[in-house]
């Protein structure tokens, strides 16, 4: 408790010193201000980018996803083209039957980019034939209050039902109309709306959309919120006229099994395709790996820059403290003569350094807000649909404590100098 009282007195004294030497104090703070400002601003912006990319990868199906696409045959196999019928439901059955670590298999039969019509209003969007597995593989869901997704029964009976993305709902229906149960027309055929997909919103950052607000807004996520989904069997029989798939999405139980699963799927597909390599497998792993490297590089380089400026800030504080002690040798002598211990003076000068660094850190936080706002503004001008970094109080707190640590370290040496001055010598100092 007594130490607390001493620290309190020392801090009050430090504030007074600061007030008495405003210009000098501000100059000595400038290093800390810039250090904290750059540190917090950089970490905030990098964090925004990182969060953005994480979500992007997740929106692509996450690390557990394998995508199978059609591919034209390699040259040496071209003459064998008729031996393979391409991706079909047979591949789906085969993968399901032979590779247990593949949890979901989502075949897609794309109908195409078509006009959909409701009561004279129309929108163009992609029509996709899918199965129930599409939901988990795409990491999407249908809120219970917004109907249901396509079921196995819909597939079996080739029903004329559809599920809409949120941006389609927003464009096709007035806000006061419940789309569930309404009938839309696609290429002259009628489909009942049985469900609405969840609206994808980016988290941890704001989405700026040029196209307005409400259901279905959403910048770079916009394409994910569009689309009309119908049973794959309906798509094949009513539109495509064949059972060819446009692609396959697979989800592995865990990302650890990914490479093994890729091998297995490749082997199975080569079998069902009679050895023809008319498909290609892609994962998000490479993307994620590239992104991780970028993240580390950003953090190291920006952190390094900020660290150097904080270091320089610390040296600035030490410099000013040493100069201030030199000016106040007599004061130190007087304080010792009237009964101050070495530890009292140590505490006094350490507190002064701490007060400078805390104030500098706080000003630095304000400056960092300005920097991030300007960067956001510039980014908005360049990319109107881009993401915006948000302030995170944890980052700010870290920046502030960083500055306090730097200030305390920088203050130790001057404080020791002050504490160890000989009172008689100090009093004689002119």
């Amino acid at each position: 408790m007594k130490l607390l009282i001493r620290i309190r007195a020392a801090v009050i004294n430090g504030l007074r010193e600061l007030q008495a030497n405003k210009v000098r104090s501000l100059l000595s703070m400038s290093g800390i201000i810039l250090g904290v400002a750059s540190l917090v601003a950089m970490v905030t912006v990098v964090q925004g980018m990182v969060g953005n990319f994480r979500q992007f990868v997740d929106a692509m199906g996450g690390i557990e996803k394998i995508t199978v696409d059609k591919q034209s045959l390699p040259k040496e196999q071209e003459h064998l083209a008729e031996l393979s019928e391409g991706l079909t439901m047979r591949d789906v059955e085969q993968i399901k039957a032979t590779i247990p670590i593949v949890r979901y298999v989502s075949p897609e039969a794309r109908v195409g980019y078509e006009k959909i019509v409701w009561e004279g209003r129309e929108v163009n969007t992609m029509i996709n034939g899918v199965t129930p597995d599409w939901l988990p593989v795409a990491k999407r869901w249908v809120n219970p209050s917004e109907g249901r997704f396509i079921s196995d029964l819909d597939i079996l009976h080739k029903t004329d039902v559809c599920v809409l993305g949120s941006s389609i709902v927003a464009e096709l229906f007035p806000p006061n109309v419940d789309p569930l149960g309404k009938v839309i027309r696609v290429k002259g055929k009628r489909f009942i709306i049985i469900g609405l997909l969840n609206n994808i919103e980016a988290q941890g950052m704001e989405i700026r959309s040029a196209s307005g607000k409400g259901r279905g807004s959403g910048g770079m996520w916009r394409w994910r919120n569009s689309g009309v989904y119908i049973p794959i069997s309906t798509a094949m029989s009513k539109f495509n006229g064949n059972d060819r798939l446009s692609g396959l999405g697979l989800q592995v139980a865990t990302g650890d099994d990914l490479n093994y699963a890729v091998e297995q799927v490749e082997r199975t597909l080569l079998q069902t395709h009679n050895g023809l390599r008319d498909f290609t497998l892609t994962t998000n792993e490479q993307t994620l790996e590239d992104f991780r490297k970028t993240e580390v590089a950003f953090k190291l380089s920006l952190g390094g820059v900020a660290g150097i400026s904080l270091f320089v800030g610390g040296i600035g504080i030490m410099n000013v403290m040493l100069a201030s002690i030199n000016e106040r040798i007599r004061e130190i002598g007087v304080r010792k003569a009237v009964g101050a211990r070495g530890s009292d003076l140590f505490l006094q000068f350490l507190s002064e350094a701490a007060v400078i660094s805390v104030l500098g850190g706080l000003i630095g936080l304000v400056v960092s807000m300005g920097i991030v706002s300007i960067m956001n503004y510039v980014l908005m001008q360049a990319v109107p649909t881009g993401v915006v970094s948000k302030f995170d109080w944890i980052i700010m707190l870290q920046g502030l404590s960083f500055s306090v640590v730097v200030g305390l370290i920088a203050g130790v040496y001057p404080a020791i100098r002050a504490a160890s001055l000989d009172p008689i010598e100090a009093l004689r100092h002119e």
Partner: protein
Amino acid sequence: MGSLATIRGLHKAYVMGDETVHALDGVDLNFDRGEYIAILGPSGSGKSTLMHILGFMDTPTKGSILFEGEEVSNLSPDRRAWYRSNRVGFVFQSFNLLPRLSVLENVALPLLYREDYTEDAREEAAKIALERVGMSHRLTHRPTQLSGGERQRVAIARAIVARPAIVFADEPTGNLDVKNVDRILDLLGSLLAEGITVVLVTHDLSVAAKAKRVISMRAGKVQEDRLQ
């Protein structure tokens, strides 16, 4: 009156370059409570060194000091700081008030380093001390706003605020005009009534003439010790 401090065989040697300077060379003295003493001597006579050692700012090379019955010749720096803040007051030739603090804060400064004083108690004690020296009308002034005589009165208030047993005044009138010299010396003399031992350290005979006992020093030794 009773003895305040008894020193026996006090030596203090400094090494300066390859020479050893004997600032004190075997000093034996006794100070009673409430004595008014002048230590007289030219510069280099050892009077300042004696003051520093008796004022707990320095330690002797050899010899013993019995202060209020305790042997204090070899104390730790923190223990000496305790004596400075509890038992000793200093008045300097150049006042040594802190320019950024008000008169009241300057006087309260020694109590800042005492754990037995709250903020209110410090202020209260400082006001009493300032009243004692006739400066209670200048509490919020800065030292630079005061005349030399006024500054020295504030410095005396600072020296007595912690109720010390002994006050050392090092050339207290050296920076004052004639008119103020007597007032300051009278003020110092009036402290005796409170049982404080006052020690004037000076090379000025006319200042020393105010004291009841004059100790003349030369080359680190007591040359003469007489009552007047």
